């Protein structure tokens, strides 16, 4: 039994039970129980029809729950036989459940946990492991999230921007546990792309693929390797081609958004034979659009690297100065400053900036990388990045 197939069934089964008149929280619990049972028994006794098995076991569980509740409140058993959903309905189920799990009233952490369970089909134990928290804590987080959306109807009117944000956060949550969260985010975004024609969904999927394509080159001997120093022969060209294809079909709709623009920048990097051969003019063009659209500080800072390559480091440093008041507390501000100062040949000041950036970041691999950059710059070993 393929684990991914099993997990793909979870949102479908929840949606079927909800359509049969059960409330989401109870149905989700029942399916989680069935899932835990499946993980335990399927390896030795695989069912002929996995979905029917899950529905039956979850349904039995619901009846048990209802029996115990019967004394308290009378409720009809609404087990009207529904036709089995077809492929398009399955895609809709994903969208329905994702909209609910990413309800704007929930915090991102709650949405992430609930999404991974109800849409991703992961067990509470796996989710807890992935986020390095005790299982009881994760169980509580999920049950509180469910309580918070108890009265929200299951419909398609979810906030797509929130859904995409949650998937983006899952993608970047890293993986120290047994579950590869980035792979999980790709799988869920792919499911969402089947259900929604919104170009931003494809844009996000493209962005994920274009980043994932560099995975093999991002780490060397346990150390983080930044884009300008990666061994590009290790990049996954098939993943890049898939990302570029998705991006083109998204951009063709003529409604650019934050994820499409980020993906466009990532695609230009993925397409370049080296950092120096990057099409900086085009990168800058996309960054200009991104800043005009989103205007967040990290995009503004990223843009300045492109400015330096197109219009010169001096110009970029002047523009960086204009961002100082708003961004001086960000690690990225000092990292970009270090890069620009190094381009200008001022290694001592560049080292100072990198050390400052190292002190501000909350990512340990990034801190280690920036500390080493500072050490390289001080020891006079630094290579000019454009050599």
């Amino acid at each position, binding site marked *: 039994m393929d684990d991914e197939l099993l997990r793909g069934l979870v949102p479908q089964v929840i949606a079927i039970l909800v359509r049969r008149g059960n409330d989401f929280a109870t149905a989700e619990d029942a399916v989680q129980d069935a899932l835990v049972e499946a993980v335990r028994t399927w390896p030795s006794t695989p069912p002929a029809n996995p979905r029917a098995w899950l529905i039956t076991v979850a349904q039995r569980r619901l009846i048990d729950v209802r029996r115990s509740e019967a004394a308290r409140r009378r409720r009809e058993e609404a087990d009207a036989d529904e036709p089995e959903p077809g492929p398009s309905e399955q895609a809709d189920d994903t969208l329905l459940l994702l909209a609910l799990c990413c309800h704007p009233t929930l915090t991102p952490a709650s949405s992430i946990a609930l999404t991974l369970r109800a849409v991703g089909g992961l067990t509470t134990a796996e989710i807890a492991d992935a986020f390095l928290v005790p299982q009881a804590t994760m169980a509580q987080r999920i049950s509180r999230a469910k309580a918070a959306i108890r009265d929200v109807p299951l419909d398609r009117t979810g906030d797509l921007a929130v859904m995409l944000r949650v998937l983006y956060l899952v993608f970047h949550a890293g993986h120290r546990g047994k579950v590869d969260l980035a792979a999980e985010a790709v799988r869920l975004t792919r499911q969402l792309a089947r259900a929604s024609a919104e170009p931003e969904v494809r844009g996000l999927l493209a962005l994920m693929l274009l980043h994932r394509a560099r995975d093999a080159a991002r780490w060397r*001997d346990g*150390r983080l390797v930044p884009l300008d120093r990666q061994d590009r022969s290790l990049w996954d060209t098939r993943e890049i081609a898939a990302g570029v294809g998705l991006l083109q079909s998204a951009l063709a709709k003529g409604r650019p958004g934050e994820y499409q623009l980020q993906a466009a920048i990532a695609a230009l990097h993925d397409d370049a034979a080296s950092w120096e051969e990057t099409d900086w003019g085009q990168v800058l063009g996309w960054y200009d659009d991104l800043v005009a659209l989103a205007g967040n500080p990290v995009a503004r800072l990223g843009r300045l690297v492109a400015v330096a390559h197109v219009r010169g480091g001096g110009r970029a440093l002047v523009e960086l100065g204009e961002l100082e008041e708003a961004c001086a507390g960000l690690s990225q501000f000092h990292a970009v400053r270090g890069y620009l100062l190094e381009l200008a040949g001022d290694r001592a000041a560049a080292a100072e900036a990198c050390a400052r950036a190292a*002190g501000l970041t909350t990512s*340990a691999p990034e801190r280690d990388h920036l500390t080493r950059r500072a050490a390289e710059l*001080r020891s006079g070993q630094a290579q000019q990045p454009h050599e």
Partner: protein
Amino acid sequence: MRFLLLKHYRGGPDNHHDVPPMDQWEPERVDDHMQSLRDISRMLEESGELVDAQALHEERVFVQYGGEGASPVTTDGPYPETSDLAAGWYMVDVESRERALEIAAIVSAGPDQHGEPMHEWIEVRQVYTDDGGVPTED
């Protein structure tokens, strides 16, 4: 039995010898130090003694109850240069106190700016258990 092995940015007994900030080391020495940290984690994982290892950001803030309806009272320094500042920890589950001290000594021997043992002070604290203790009738 569980022990917390605490590393410090500063504080504790006088240093064995001066160690400049790591961004002033030779880059290869930085790599060696980072590698030794990874090696220690792997060693403790393989020996089945690692419970947890975490690093703490250098920035800190002290917070105090501000009274009814009031915001929390905070202070973020400046603190005296000698004040204790934890940098991170290993939580280990070991057979004996001696083993905890042995591990602490391994951590302390991480290479410095010259590739020599740093002799860093490691604070070792035993963690209380939540069992009922040893029955007195034994």
